């Protein structure tokens, strides 16, 4: 069985769910004030409340990011219900803060918690439950296969990026960065339209995997013994890889254009037959 989808690291941070980090800040100040005044009860209550708020906000944020990725993809497994879990932890944190920090009676603290839970639900909603499945032309469900291929490709790109950091050559580094950017663009196109996966199989299995192995190998060898001949060979290989990646991207774009042409042609014929044009 394929692994559940996980957020790809290294992207620009999104402001989603930041409110839940900012709103409970007075609880942190309350814990500091209790510490300064030597109120152990207040300190423990506020510290526990703030810790729960932080855990809840982290879960909620991760859930929102996973949901955004889920929405962006055409094929995806249902993400872990982190948003719902985060809402529950925030409700608990609100109740604990109201009870132990603010000194509210238990019934009122529960009411505070329920209001926070309802607020989280109304504002952020529940997590998506159904997987976005994909079937090929023969009607076979290939969701797991598509997700596995995309995850493997992401891993290969991550290895190339990691190896790039160990290569101390500005020219090779910039070339590798271009290759990584191209590979990501191709991957985005495949995520948006997994029907292209069959056409891009060679790119994923041969070129991307080869690029990963060569870069990884060069990063290791080059650290031990520098050789101008090896560097030249590596430069040549990178140039070829870059060319192949560009061709792949172009090919996918052209396929989209061809698909659209065919659709327009079919529609035109149909409209002509029905006497509309």
């Amino acid at each position, binding site marked *: 069985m394929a692994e559940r989808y996980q957020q790809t690291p290294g992207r620009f941070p999104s402001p989603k769910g930041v*409110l*839940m980090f900012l*709103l*409970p*800040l*007075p*609880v942190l*100040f*309350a*814990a500091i*004030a*209790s510490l300064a*005044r030597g*109120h152990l*009860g*207040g300190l423990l*209550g*506020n510290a526990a*409340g703030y810790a729960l*708020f932080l855990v809840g906000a982290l879960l909620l944020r991760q859930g929102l990011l996973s949901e955004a990725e889920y929405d962006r993809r055409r094929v995806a497994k249902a993400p872990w219900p982190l948003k719902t879990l985060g809402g529950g932890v*925030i409700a608990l944190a*609100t109740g604990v*803060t*109201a*009870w*132990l*920090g*603010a*000194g*509210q*009676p*238990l019934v009122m603290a529960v009411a*505070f*918690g329920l*209001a*926070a839970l*309802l*607020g*989280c*639900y*109304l*504002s*952020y909603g529940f997590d998506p439950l159904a997987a976005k499945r994909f079937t090929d032309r023969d009607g076979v469900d290939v969701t797991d296969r598509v997700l596995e291929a995309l995850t493997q490709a992401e891993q290969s790109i991550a290895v190339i990026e990691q190896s790039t950091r160990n290569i101390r050559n500005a020219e090779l580094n910039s070339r590798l960065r271009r290759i990584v950017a191209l590979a990501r663009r191709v991957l985005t196109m495949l995520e948006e339209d997994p029907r292209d996966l069959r056409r891009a199989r060679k790119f994923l299995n041969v070129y991307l995997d080869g690029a990963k192995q060569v870069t990884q190998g060069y990063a290791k060898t080059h650290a031990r013994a520098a050789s101008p001949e090896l560097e030249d060979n590596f430069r040549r290989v990178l140039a070829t890889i870059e060319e192949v990646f560009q061709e792949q991207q172009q090919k996918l774009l052209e396929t989209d254009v061809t698909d659209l042409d065919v659709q327009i042609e079919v529609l035109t014929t149909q409209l002509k037959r029905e006497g509309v044009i």
Partner: protein
Amino acid sequence: MPASLRKFIGLLLIFAAVGVASCQALVASCSTTAATPTVLTPR
């Protein structure tokens, strides 16, 4: 219910619950006669 209204009510509830509880906790910890949490008061 429109999505924007639902979100607005949700945000109001979050501000009312989380914001009020947090500010009350801060006021309680800063007041000179600090409010003792009911759970910690001797019976």
